[in-house]
């Protein structure tokens, strides 16, 4: 049995953030935090991808998480990161539990289109909602960690470390999940659903579970992003946001629970650099990067680190 290297890898990344973060400038720490937030969403996409499904509507849960965080601040003055992420994740999970009954019956492009439609419905709701600030969105209250508001000089570092702990912790739990019999069903479903059903397992149940987990991760990611940026707006539910997540998922590949975070970081780096070099061509750079990834790295960036076992 190959030794499981993932926990060590996760630990290494965490250590790198805690130690290396001390030397990083504020803006890098911010990008790192956002990468963790996006990575959470993409981790969920990875689960669905393993089962052969691509969701073009994860922005729905990302936004639910974000607006839950914002709402908590507005209603109760809570700015605590952990409370916000927990609440965001829970809200997203609840919605996914219900929607999953419908979505788990779809495959291929129809799964994608339905997930898209559902996220656009939510977008339609909040973009016209005066109470939620319509297109302007709203600002969040200042973040606190365990009730403590860090010093201005340390906020970004503290956020990055907290984000790392939570995101990598979630990744570890996901990794454990993928080792359970249910977690292992994904590739079997993608490969041959009929076989799975005829062996007595419910494919719909497995997909429903994966969908709820993916939504929970996305909700947590949304709350984290909202708190980091300090502002939320309906754009977070728009199809272009979902598209970005799928983009990062393609970039990352499905090789490891660490891959989504790595992919999100690379995405953030390309975005920042491309925008600095030429603000009017950064999308072009992203598009080109995506094309290159699809054509030359069908298994994502992670495949560069892992040698494929001979078939």
């Amino acid at each position, binding site marked *: 049995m190959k030794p499981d290297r993932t926990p060590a890898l996760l630990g290494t990344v965490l250590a790198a953030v805690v130690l290396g973060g001390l030397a990083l400038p504020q803006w890098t720490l911010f990008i790192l935090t956002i990468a963790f937030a996006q990575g959470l969403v993409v981790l969920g996409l990875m689960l669905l991808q393993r089962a052969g499904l691509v969701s073009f509507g994860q922005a729905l849960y990302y936004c639910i998480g974000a607006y839950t965080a914002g709402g908590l601040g507005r209603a109760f003055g809570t700015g605590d990161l952990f409370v916000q992420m927990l609440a965001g994740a829970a809200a997203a999970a609840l919605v996914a539990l219900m929607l999953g009954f419908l979505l788990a*019956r779809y495959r*291929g492009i129809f799964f994608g289109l339905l997930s898209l*439609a559902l996220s656009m419905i939510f*977008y339609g709701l909040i973009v*016209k909602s005066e109470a939620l600030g319509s297109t302007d969105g709203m600002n969040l209250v200042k973040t606190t960690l365990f009730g403590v508001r860090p010093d201005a000089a340390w906020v970004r570092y503290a956020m990055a470390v907290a984000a790392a702990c939570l995101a990598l912790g979630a990744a570890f739990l996901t990794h454990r999940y993928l080792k359970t019999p249910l977690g292992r069903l994904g590739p079997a479903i993608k490969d041959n659903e009929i076989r799975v059903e005829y062996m007595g397992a419910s494919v719909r149940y497995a997909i429903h579970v994966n969908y709820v987990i993916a939504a929970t991760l996305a909700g947590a990611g949304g709350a984290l992003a909202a708190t980091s940026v300090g502002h939320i707006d309906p754009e977070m539910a728009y*199809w272009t946001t979902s598209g970005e997540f*799928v*983009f990062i998922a393609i970039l990352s590949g499905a090789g490891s629970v660490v891959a989504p975070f790595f992919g999100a970081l690379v995405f953030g780096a390309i975005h920042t650099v491309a925008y600095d070099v030429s603000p009017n061509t950064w*999308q*072009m750079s992203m598009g080109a990067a995506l094309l290159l990834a699809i054509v030359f790295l069908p298994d994502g960036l992670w495949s560069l680190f892992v040698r494929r076992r001979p078939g």
Partner: protein
Amino acid sequence: MSQIGPVLVDGIIYSAWLFIAAVGLTLVYGVMKILNVTHGSFYALGAYAGASLTGAWLARGFPPMLSYAVLLGGALLVTLVFAPAIERGLLRFMYAKDEVVILLVTYALFLILEDTIKLIWGVNPYFVAEPYALLGSFEVGGLRYPTYNLILVGLALALSAGLAWVLHSTRVGKLLLAVIHDPEMSRALGVNVDRFYLVTFTLGSLLAAIGGSFTAPTVSVVPGLGVDVIVLSFAVVVIGGLGSLPGAALGAVIVGLVRSVSVHYLPQVELFVIYSVMALVLAFRPRGLFGLAEPRRI
């Protein structure tokens, strides 16, 4: 209910616009089984080409009445420059891949084209309203509507009649229908399916470009114009049925009327209802109201 008149008129105008915007998307899906995100790019390209060329035309003092031809010409030009290059240069190498992967390729192209537009036309808005204002206005139920909107309706009708005629009465059209129904069989019977893909992609993109260019006089043409259109087109096409042209018409009418009703009575739910209809159709009749596509559904 005195609102009915305006609701209907608004609905019809919006439906016409939606049909023109979306019909190319369903055509491309029907023939090539691709959900083409660059459809939104061609809409924007058409808008920019139409606006900029018409602006130049009018600035030189040429007859304003011919600006409509310029709009058409602009759409045609920009399509011929980009569409064949995209299809022959990139897309045709992707046909063997999974439909979701191809969709992502078109999404990547969409991103590239968004900035290509900025590089060509800059980021400042184009506002060329003359063709819009030129035809004056007409009155219905006490409200004035620009006559230009009738052009949109007329264009939609002309396009649907034209497409229907081409598909059912010409040899090329019938072959296209055959390819829609069964590409493998068509290929086996000697139809040059690859050439059909090129023609279809170009035609579908042209229709999007026409939609953009004829809308240009009514709006301020800015970057990001195609972003909303693409997802709305998805909704129309899904409701009517992927790959069905009568479906696109019906989808356009449904979305147009639904939107018009909500705008007049409860504006907050405008987008909500449109995408709810899309979700409902997917939930209860995934193949759409006239759908041909086999829904992947268990």
